[in-house]
């Protein structure tokens, strides 16, 4: 007996169906981000796009690496690298929950035959200074999706907010195909011969080899060095971007940022827009990944741990701030006076890097 239909989707069909569903609802289909991330949230398509006022809708698959979760391919339910299908809806439409439930129909889940519950699950990522509230969506007792309303990202209070839907693709596929091991999921089926390629055929080697690397062989000393190099470069990029912003302000002689952008001088403006914040963010992601490897290696002591998280967070917060400023410079008219004030302006004057949730 299979969970849903006599002809369950293969892993790749599952992805295709979800992508089609969201493309038909106006999402940009992005491709997986090509720097190691721990979750789809960390890809710039989420982390940076949820900042600032511009509406955006995007969907993408994101392979997500979590070194400490590796199990050498021996555990049928755990992976070092799993795949998420990430959807960002900014701002969330009123019927966002209904849309989500419809998407389950699109992958062959007839909700009348199943039990679906939205159970409280709030999300927080200290390294990104980001948090939101939401649910884990439970289908017949299985958590298939994380549904989050973002409230803060990179220490910036968000407005408008975004809804993030994170589908756990392996889980959903295993459910649809009614298999007990992730490695038995049918990834692809040859339409002519009916021959199947399984998840294990495609991914088992990664799981084994990266577990060996992450737990046993990653060179701790070099990883620390890499971390420091990336961090240093990220910081200097951020500094140069700050200098441009300061120049722009000095030129117009006004303190208020938005006014400065409105009538700023062209050259300073151009330098600001050229500021490679995206590159800085890649460097920050590298640091985050190296932190995860060092953590998996057991190389981060108690006293260091909090400090290292704070270092990565400082980069993320600096990037988020710079990004927001750059966005404002790019589209100075986007903040009309009759629009509701952005949250980060209302709440705390001395800036919005506060790490504690406001709610």
């Amino acid at each position, binding site marked *: *007996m299979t*969970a*849903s239909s006599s002809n369950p989707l293969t892993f790749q069909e599952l992805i295709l169906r979800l992508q089609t569903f969201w493309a038909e609802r106006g999402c940009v289909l992005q491709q997986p981000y090509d720097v190691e991330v721990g979750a789809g949230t960390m890809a710039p398509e989420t982390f940076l796009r949820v900042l600032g006022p511009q509406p955006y809708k995007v969907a993408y698959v994101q392979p997500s690496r979590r070194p400490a979760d590796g199990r050498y391919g*021996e*555990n*049928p*339910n*755990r992976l070092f690298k799993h795949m998420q299908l990430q959807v960002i809806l900014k*701002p*969330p439409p*009123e019927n966002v*929950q209904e849309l989500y*439930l419809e998407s389950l129909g699109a992958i062959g889940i007839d*909700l*009348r*035959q*199943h*039990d*679906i*519950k*939205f*159970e*409280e699950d*709030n999300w927080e990522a200290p390294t990104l200074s980001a948090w*939101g*509230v939401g*649910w884990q969506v439970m*289908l*017949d*007792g*299985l958590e298939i999706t994380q549904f989050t*309303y973002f*409230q803060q990202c990179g220490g910036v*209070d968000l*407005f408008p*907010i975004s809804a993030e839907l994170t589908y756990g693709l392996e889980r959903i596929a295993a*459910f649809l195909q*009614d298999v*007990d091991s992730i490695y038995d999921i049918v990834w692809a089926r040859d339409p002519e011969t009916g021959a199947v390629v399984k998840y294990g055929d495609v991914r088992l080697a990664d799981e084994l080899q990266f577990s060996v690397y992450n737990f046993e062989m990653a060179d701790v000393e070099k990883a620390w060095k890499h971390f420091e190099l990336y961090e240093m470069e990220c910081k200097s990029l951020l500094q140069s971007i700050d200098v441009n912003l300061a120049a722009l302000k000095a030129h117009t002689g006004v303190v208020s940022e938005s006014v400065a952008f409105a009538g700023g001088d062209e050259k300073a403006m151009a330098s600001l827009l050229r500021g490679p914040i995206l590159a800085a963010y890649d460097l920050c992601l590298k640091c985050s990944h190296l932190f995860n490897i060092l953590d998996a290696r*057991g190389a*981060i*002591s*108690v*006293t260091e*741990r*909090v400090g290292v998280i704070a270092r990565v967070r400082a980069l993320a917060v600096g990037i988020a701030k710079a990004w927001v400023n750059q966005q404002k410079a790019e589209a100075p008219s986007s903040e009309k006076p009759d629009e*509701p*004030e*952005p*949250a980060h302006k*209302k*709440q705390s004057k001395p800036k919005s890097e506060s790490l504690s*949730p406001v*709610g």
Partner: protein
Amino acid sequence: MPDFLLEIGCEEIPARMIDAASVELRERVGALLTRERLAGGEIVCFDTPRRLAILASGIAAAQSDVVEQLTGPSVNIAYKDGKPTPAAHAFARKAGVEVAQLEKIATAKGEYIAAKITKKGRRAAEILADSLPKELATIYWPKNMYWRKPNERFVRPVRWLVAMLDSDSIPLEFDGIQARNISRGHRILSSGEVTISRAGSAYFESMRAAKVLGRADREQQIRKALDAATRTIPGARWREDQPLLDTVVNLTEFPSVILGSFDPQFLALPEEVLVTVMRDHQKYFAVEDSTGKLVPNFLAVLNTDSDPRGLIRHGNERVLRARFNDARFFWQTDQKKSLLERLELLRHVTFQKDLGSYYEKTQRVQRLCSWLSEILKQHDIAVRPGVIHKAACLAKTDLTTELVKEFTELQGIVGGLYARAQQLDPSLPEATRLAIADAIYDHYKPESTDDDVPRSLEGAVLSIGDKADTIAGMFALGLVPSGSKDPFALRRQANGIVKVIAEKKLPLHLSHMMRDAWAGYRGSDAEDKFVPDPQFSESVQAFFRERLEFYLRDVRGYSYDVVKAVLGADAEDVVDALQRAEAVRQVLHMPEFQAIGAACKRIRNILKQAAEKKIQPAGQFEYLREDAHEGKNLRAYMERTGPRIEVHRSKKEYFDALLLLSGAREPVDEFFDKVMVMVEDQKVRANRLALLQTLLHEFSTIADFSEIVSETKT
């Protein structure tokens, strides 16, 4: 007298928050109706994960008109030579009446002019539409969010609103939603929108038709379904679990239950692990046979009416199998490293960011436990050193296991299970090994006031030592719980300490124990961040006094005045406080103690006044020839009875001591009737003050009786 219906339609509200919010909404609406003179009959709640609703029957359609009197300037200012002045005209204009209609009224400050104005009552619809948004916006949520405007917060986005007086919608708007007469039914089992014809029972009928049940109905339906499903297994019963039931009740709008099964070979895993997976992770009820042993079945509560094709059961069984497989995998993996080998790993597990690692905590707790054992030994309570030392050493090592990383609520329990499975040091006798395992297993206990205390003495000492170390560290950093803020659950931990001490009857002095715990941090890096010593001692003492008060009142059921009186004498020795509370409770009803209470209060006042006038009592009271007869009587009583009371007291026979003390009533009453304390004769006065001081001391070593009279209800 229309019925008023309010329904806030919301995306799924967290189960843990629904009950409190529902009560609050009813209270707020009730208070609003009363405040606005609209109150009618009963207010009924109707809450589900997707709605908070109340139905207030028979409220006033409008406020009645009221006549108010507005006071103006004084008559002297309002009239000159009998003619109204400009001030009178201005006041009349402001009040909206003719000058001729102004009246003169007498007040404490003299004669003033006043105007009577009739305030037209407002309509209920208008008042509710105006006032409800503020009430709804201020409902307390442990965690809320914004979605539409940054300053508009609620637990989850509001998606619809129903607000009706009988069959009319009222113009209420909240969080951008206009109230209509349209609600929504069950997500899956209904066709969606539901038109409400009328506020009143019609609402409940519409909801039932749309497969949405109220809380009580859901609970009943779940209980019935659990019973019915369990009956299919002969002799089995489901494990009663009210917190779990409350959760699933608030996760469903129309519940049903399925019975699933799992491979019996998983029963080889410890029951604690199986139940945790089922209850905490999957929200399943466990099923047991008539002897209380688990059977390979579970009960899942669904938010739908049935599972005709068995797909839901199949899916849940699949998930549980994966979870159990994981647990078994973790169990096996964890065995590859013994607890003792894991000790080193604790260096990498943070206890608290300023207080260092669990490795350091382990060392402190070990020392503290030996110290506590020493104290107990002095009272002939023998803690086995080999057991406590090893148990304290290994207690936290399970934090490094896969099983605890996955199921954190099993911390301690897993350590105990592993200690048992691993046999520890084979050179130890079996009894010692088991005792170590049990002490580790129990050391987080009691986790609540209803929970059991550790079974063994060593478990008790470890439980106290672990918690005292945490509290000492946090208080030393100034991280003192306040109001609803207690992120480290220090209150619960202190409640645990008090309960363990009380139930194990341990002669521990709370403040001394906490100083010992505090001393464990000496020389650590954290010390630079510590608050000054006196601040620590004061805050920790006040904190434990509160916890002891809570224990005596809320857990042991002693009345407020007994607890106040008992803790007024001493709040450091828990066992002693309990014994004194029991004795005081027994004598409280005696008229003698009501009188003694009054006398104590009086003595306190006299001594206080004397102190204010800087009049010193004599160093010791003595026989004075010139003293009054009654004073001598009282003194004689004291000399006669004092030593006997002391004997009882030293043996902690508090009831007997108090009975003897009750004999003081007569001489004391006589004394106060006949004798004046503050006389001119300095010598006599000082002597009498000394007598009273001694008397008060005598009374107050068991309980501060002045508290009894001031608080007693009789």
